[in-house]
């Protein structure tokens, strides 16, 4: 089931109005403006050729979209799957609708149909891409909405179940566009066969977890009852016709058989009216809204997530996605600044430590050298002192001895003088 986004309901003060104010006219203002703007809708039809796609389109819009002058794709020869778009402008009751029908001729017609869905996916993505680019421009002007709002998938009325191609296609596209499966050429099935076929298809759809378009519940109980009835008829079995036949005096669109007329707009014959009512009269706007709010947003967020996670590790948490890529870059920038600051602080620390170490070493060696120098100095001083002492001793000794010598000399002199005296005196015989 397609996930519908929830609406947040904050608590705000209520106020009662005590008289006429006038903003109840707002819806009328919205109505008027929307009519003035006009509407756009893009419908894609996919299915093998010959299933009556072009006829159904003509029947749905009661116009000759495909006619002799503008032949439908089935009438043309093609070799590969192509994607063709036709734009028409239709008016009704003052409302202008620019309708784009996208056809896929060649789908499922080849012998080897592998990847035949790829052109379809590419087309849908390219329209989303165009819208994304237009939305992201600096100078935005009116953005035409060419995104595919609805894809009608035609199932061949085999009566047995879905073909592998059907399953593969729907699985690949249910995340990109609103898929509505239809049983084509339903006038080849009896009501009972049709019932069984529908049940089988729905069972297979559920088994393969294919998310087809779901009708939203409304607040109105009456409407909800109708919606439930429609849901029971899914997938819708349709019949289309370009021919108007007269039945019981009425002019109706139908297919003339020898055994009767299968009327397109007869609810007992097929589900065409249900389809038309649902597609055009009641849920066209919802299809556009789901395309805008769900499928397009999916595309966009995947695209932008790829851009921002470019080159960054993919282990980022989901919380990253709640920011814009720019905010994310800002945050990365801030993180980087912090990282750099830390790195800077670390480097500073290491640097300071190394410097301190070196300075300390220098200091130590200085101290060591000083110490040694001191020691040597003291050593030298000690030696000096010793020498001084020695000299002093020597000087003393010398002085003493010299003094002694002088005394002795004096004595000698005295003695010799006395002897001389004595000699002179003749005391000596």
């Amino acid at each position: 089931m397609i996930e519908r986004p929830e609406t947040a309901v904050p608590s705000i003060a209520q106020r009662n109005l005590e008289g006429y104010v006038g903003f109840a006219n707002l819806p009328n203002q919205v109505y008027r403006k929307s009519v003035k703007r006009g509407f756009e809708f893009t419908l894609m039809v996919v299915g093998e050729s010959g299933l009556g796609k072009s006829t159904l389109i003509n029947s749905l819009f009661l116009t000759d979209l495909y006619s002799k002058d503008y032949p439908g794709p089935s009438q043309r020869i093609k070799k590969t799957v192509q994607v063709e778009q036709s734009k028409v402008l239709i008016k009704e009751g003052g409302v202008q609708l620019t309708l784009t029908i996208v056809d896929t001729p060649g789908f499922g017609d080849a012998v080897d149909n592998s990847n035949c869905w790829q052109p379809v996916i590419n087309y849908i993505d390219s329209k989303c891409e165009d819208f994304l680019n237009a939305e992201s421009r600096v100078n935005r002007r009116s953005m035409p909405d060419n995104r595919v709002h609805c894809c009608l998938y035609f199932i061949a009325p085999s009566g047995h179940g879905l073909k592998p191609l059907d399953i593969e296609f729907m699985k690949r596209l249910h995340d990109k566009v609103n898929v509505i499966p239809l049983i084509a050429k339903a006038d080849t099935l009896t009501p009972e066969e049709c019932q069984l076929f529908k049940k089988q298809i729905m069972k297979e759809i559920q088994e393969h977890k294919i998310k087809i378009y779901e009708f939203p519940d409304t607040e109105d109980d009456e409407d909800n009852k109708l919606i439930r009835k429609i849901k029971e008829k899914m997938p819708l079995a349709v019949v289309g016709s370009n021919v108007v036949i007269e039945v019981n005096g009425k002019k109706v669109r139908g297919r003339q058989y020898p055994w009767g007329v299968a009327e397109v707009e007869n609810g007992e014959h097929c589900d065409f009216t249900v389809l038309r009512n649902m597609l055009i009269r009641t849920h066209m706007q919802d299809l556009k809204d789901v395309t805008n709010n769900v499928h397009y947003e999916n595309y966009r967020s995947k695209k932008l997530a790829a851009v921002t996670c470019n080159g960054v590790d993919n282990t980022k948490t989901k919380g990253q996605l709640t920011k814009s890529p720019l905010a994310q870059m800002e945050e990365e920038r801030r993180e980087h600044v912090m990282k750099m600051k830390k790195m800077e602080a670390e480097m500073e620390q290491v640097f300071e430590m190394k410097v301190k170490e070196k300075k300390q070493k220098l200091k130590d060696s200085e101290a060591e050298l000083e110490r040694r120098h001191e020691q040597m100095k003291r050593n030298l001083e000690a030696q000096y002192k010793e020498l001084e002492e020695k000299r002093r001793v020597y000087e003393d000794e010398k002085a003493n001895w010299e003094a002694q010598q002088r005394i002795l000399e004096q004595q000698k002199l005295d003695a010799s003088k006395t002897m001389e005296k004595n000699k002179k005196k003749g005391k000596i015989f």
Partner: protein
Amino acid sequence: MAANEVDVFAHEEKRNLELGGHVGFDSLPDQLVSKSVAQGFCFNILCVGETGIGKSTLMNTLFNTTFENEEASHYQSEVQLRPQTYDLQESNVNLKLTTVHTVGFGDQINKEESYKPILEYIDAQFERFLEEELKIKRSLFNCHDTRIHICLYFIAPTGHSLKSLDLVTMKKLDSKVNIIPIIAKADTVSKSELDKLKIKIMSELVSNGVQIYQFPTEDEAVAEINTSMNTHLPFAVIGSVEEIKMGNKMVKARLYPWGSVQVENENHCDFVKLREMLLRVNMEDLREQTHTRHYELYRRCKLEEMGFKDTGPDSHSFSLQETYEAKRKEFLVDLQRKEDEMRQMFVNKVKETEAELKEKEKELHERFEQLKRMHQEEKKNLEEKRRELEEEMNAFNRRRVAAETLMGQALQGCSQQPFKKDKDKKK
């Protein structure tokens, strides 16, 4: 497989086709409207005016209810904005109304900065919306739109024209928000004075290039009434929640000794015109203008500021992805550059300091070499002196020994001589 490799065959012309019956898409506007009604509407009004000019009263009168408000004092140091949100319902329409009042506007002595908080508030709401719009996972339809859709500028009915504060403020705001100027407390102005005042105000606005909101005249349904209303601007309004009995009805009025001024009497004031224009006729247009004109302008300026362009230097138009990728590359290069710069700075610092320290080491060694040399010198000196001493000592010793030997000899001779003498004597 790239998206632009699709082989698309398109019928170029958009054909007009006739419908062969009732298809039913004329219900599209109804579908759109019922969705909008189910979702509810948002409307945000900003009231700018001096304290006591009647902003809260007018809001109460316009919406026929009582909104919370405290009376503001005149002593606010700066202008503040006070937003309040209410859920209103009329028939099946739910309206989330936010009223923002400027508190303290016009009270300060220096009013040069008065417009700034208002501008900042308006920009902040745009910024909030833009942020949501730029997120990767976003919920735009869910987001409560807080952008200001209309600014009611209350002009005091005192002077003969606009005050300079009014002109300055309106000029600053006119490119950011839809402005409807209104003359407040219109019951203090007489009819003739009022006409003169209106003309004066409008001509001043025009001559100063202030762009006020013009009621749209393109839609035929409302063109006539809008064109006529455009000529009655600025609206002279009175607000009152008190009711008095007139005839058999209760009407909102202000009671004076000389008569009663009825709010909803078009002869007395333009209140009804304001209500018509603002709520009944042009509410959706106000919302649209805010989104497609004012918000787009803000967004464009903001993106250009951030360096986004639509076309490259060779006028090749950028896709969103290219733009983001380019920005990202730039950003990563910038980060890398900063990192390299820092590393380089460190390498330089390390080199410098290493050189410094080496210098110091060299100095230290030199110093000690010097000291060593000095030391060696001293040692040499010491050695010299020692040798000297040794020599002197040796010389002295030799002398002593010589002297002692001589003395020894002399003594011997002396001791022999007396012997001889005795011998001589004996003969």
